């Protein structure tokens, strides 16, 4: 069992990053070039498969006329899949419930036009939404193979594990389903058996603990620079998931590398910083490079419905440069900014003014935004130059807004709320800024 902790991992990455410094320039150009030079980055699974780091997620597909919910545009879909295969993408992730239940069938049509040894199929046991009987599941399993026009499934996942331990037991253990799937694996009709996880930590721990008994070949987790340390309430930090799985030598496929698109469409303060570092690289490429940087990641799944997205991702992973330690720190800071210090969409139109309690609303918001834009926000008391940033924020606030008109004086009367054309909840943001200012003034740890 190789026990890689984050520190040594980062160190290793740092070295790799330095070695690849030259190659990075090439990646930069890659975002624009139609055909990527270089080879798709390949990773090796526990069963020895050579899997492309870019995986194709087959939940959303191009529709006729681009209308949401319309029929799938089969021509476009086939062109995308063919293009992906030509450029080294060989992992296709679908499920019986995707695309209104049509995904497996469409993928069967697209893929069966190619030789079966050129691609790996991943599909799932989607018995999470209702019937948990063996018969229902068995039918679903057989139907997947039929739809996908294949005798065996390369990667089979217990779909959406994580809501509760009882639910896991009910879906897979009590009905004997897992026993059946293990037998299918023994007989080669399932080549890798794993699960995908969304939800609670204790369920994750429980399923991971079953590894000794069942030997999971892989697992699928939600992983990106936000989820690493700042997972939303109903998810678990991917740093934890990753360490637990990596320490057991279980390779991982990644879902939501863009966290539902949020990491491709970042706030303007964030994109400005990314573009300043590399004007050629797309915003999304940062997230893809990040998701692929950890060594136990087998494949990063992206649901690509546009050729440009596919090309951009192929470019990112064809001359793949893992994030350097410095870049990982940069993205961690970006993650804090996006989760805890969102920009305030104030345009200083002054419609809210004058506040009858004398608050200089736009003045306060402008100073706050300025600190975020100019990377002067003391985002954590552990920051290297925390003292300097703290001083800049506090002294700067006093300079831009007389203390008599600062956020601490907002009583929350709410008169300003209906006046704001940007629908900013002004009192709530002012109170947040006041709390933050207090944290800085009191030298609290955060």
């Amino acid at each position, binding site marked *: 069992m190789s026990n890689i902790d984050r520190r040594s991992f980062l160190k290793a990455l740092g070295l790799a990053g330095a070695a690849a410094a030259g190659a990075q320039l090439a990646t930069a150009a890659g975002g624009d070039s139609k055909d990527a030079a270089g080879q798709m980055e390949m990773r090796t699974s526990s069963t020895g498969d050579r899997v492309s780091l870019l995986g194709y997620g087959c939940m959303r597909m191009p529709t006729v006329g681009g209308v949401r919910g319309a029929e799938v545009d089969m021509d476009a879909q086939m062109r995308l899949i063919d293009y992906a295969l030509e450029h080294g993408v060989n992992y296709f992730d679908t499920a019986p419930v995707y695309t209104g239940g049509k995904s497996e069938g469409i993928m069967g049509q697209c893929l069966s036009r190619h030789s079966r040894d050129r691609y790996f199929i991943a599909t799932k046991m989607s018995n999470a939404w209702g019937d948990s009987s063996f018969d229902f599941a068995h039918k679903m399993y057989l139907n997947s193979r039929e739809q996908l026009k294949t005798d065996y499934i390369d990667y089979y996942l217990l779909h959406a594990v994580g809501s509760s331990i009882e639910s896991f037991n009910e879906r897979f253990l009590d009905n004997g389903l897992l026993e059946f799937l293990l037998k299918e694996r023994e007989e080669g009709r399932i080549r890798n058996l794993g699960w995908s996880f969304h939800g609670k930590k204790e369920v994750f721990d429980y399923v991971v603990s079953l590894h000794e008994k069942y030997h999971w070949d892989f697992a699928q987790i939600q992983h990106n620079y936000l989820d690493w340390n700042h997972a939303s309430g109903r998810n678990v930090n991917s740093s934890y998931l990753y360490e637990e799985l990596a320490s057991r030598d279980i390779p991982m496929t990644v879902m939501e590398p863009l966290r539902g698109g949020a990491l491709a469409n970042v706030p303007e303060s964030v994109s400005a910083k990314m573009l300043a570092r590399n004007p050629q690289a797309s915003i999304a490429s940062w997230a893809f490079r990040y998701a692929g940087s950890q060594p136990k990641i087998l494949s990063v799944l992206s649901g690509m419905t546009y050729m440009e997205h596919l090309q951009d991702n192929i470019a990112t992973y064809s001359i793949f440069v893992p994030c350097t330690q410095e870049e990982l720190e940069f993205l961690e800071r970006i993650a804090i900014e996006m989760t805890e210090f969102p920009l305030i969409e104030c345009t200083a139109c*002054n419609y809210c*003014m*004058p*506040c*009858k*309690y*004398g*608050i*200089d609303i*736009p*003045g306060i918001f402008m100073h706050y935004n300025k600190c975020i834009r100019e990377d002067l926000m003391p985002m954590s008391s552990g920051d290297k130059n925390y003292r*300097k940033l703290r*001083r*800049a924020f506090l*002294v*700067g606030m*006093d*300079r*831009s*807004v*007389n*203390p*008599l*008109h600062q956020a*601490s*004086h*907002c*009583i*929350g*009367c*709410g*008169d300003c709320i209906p006046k704001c054309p940007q629908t900013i909840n002004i009192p709530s943001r002012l*109170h947040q800024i006041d709390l933050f200012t207090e944290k800085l*003034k*009191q*030298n609290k740890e955060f």
Partner: protein
Amino acid sequence: MLRIIRIILAALCFTGITLLFLDFTGATHALLGWLAKIQLLPAILSANIVVIAALLLLTLIFGRVYCSVICPLGVMQDIIAWAGKRGKKKNRFKYSYSRPKTWLRVTMLVIMVASIVFGISAVTALLAPYSAYGRIASSFFAPLYALVNNLFAAVAERAGSYAFYPTEVWGKATAVVVVAAVTLVALAILAWRNGRTYCNTICPVGTVLGFLSKFSLFRPVIDTSKCTGCKLCEKSCKAACIDISSHKIDRSRCVACMDCISTCTHGALKYKPVWAAKNAAESPATDASRRAFLATAGALTLAAAKARAQDNTLVKQVAPKNNPAPKVRLTPPGSQSHKNLENKCIGCQLCVQACPGNILVPSASLEHFMQPEMRYNENYCRPECNRCSSVCPTGAIRPISLEEKASTQIGHAVWYHWLCVPMVEGDSCGNCARHCPTGAITMVEDQSAEGKTVHVPAIDREKCIGCGACQSVCPTRPVSAIQVEGHEVHKVI
């Protein structure tokens, strides 16, 4: 040589202690705080045995070097006297021997002791030399320093640097400024004309140390075989304690400045222990382009005043707070009780200078004249600050950790419903509750209001520590709807 050493040491101590009074950022407190704590009267009041013993021993060995090196008021007089001696040769040797005014010295000492024993703090504060200097430094030097700082702050702001930020220049209390001005003028006249007159007539510390220095191990001694009776030493003695006609030195008045030793051209004066001796002489070398400095400071002040940041013109101007004094005065955490503060405080103003929020102000009332008390207007006694307790040299404000401070009740908040915004304007507020660091304030539905339900603050007096956060963030102006009353004895909750 000895004189040069004395001047260097005195310059260092004086600069250090002056900086302590000037620094409003708290940066030098840890580094220089000891300079206030080795002052004799503060050491006695804080019962600092080590310092007292060391100072007594120092005096018993070397004479009153304390008065020439450690005491900032003494050094300040030396500087004034030095200025008064510049120019014509006649000026340089203008002093002469005078008879001791023992009755005056003893009377002053008795008054001092009595005022300490009976707790007449105003008198103690007036007589203590260190406090006198503290008042002068905080009333006159600190504003100058603040002006220069503000100029730098204005320049820094234009340059986008955060190295300086502006501070309040004027305004602690007029009474203190008046006392300081009277002291300064009187001292300046005395020192300019006659050197150390104050130290040898009024200063009670000088009297005590003078008594000890009579028996000091090292002492200036006149070698009568070498003395030609030229009186140069007598005329240069700022303590007026050398009587050449009888070849006697009044060692109780000698402040061991070593001026006489370097003045004597015949080597007849030596600073030596009862048995052996060694001496040397050199001339002074301290000069500051004072005029240039003052001129620049003046010009800079004007510039600084102009360079104030401009507010958004749409901001509604609000009246600055002007809360009435609490009925029972508020004393800073660490002072423990009014009694402790009254007994120990000598009104040196170091805490007032150190307070970053300008909450501490000197009292104008006669019973505790010039002693610190708290006023909450735009600021309050913030949880991350204990500077006053860390600088106080006398133990009037004992050192208090931030944790102790957070649980020390120095007063309690009182709500005035007829001023409260929800009652008067009908707006929902709760700013006091939102800012209360101890959670002592909860917003409750008001029962008495007719028709409309409003939420008003309810204060848990057991939890309230009297920090004044509520009072300073209360939107009602100029008098807050919630105000803190002091406690005579502080309580740990």
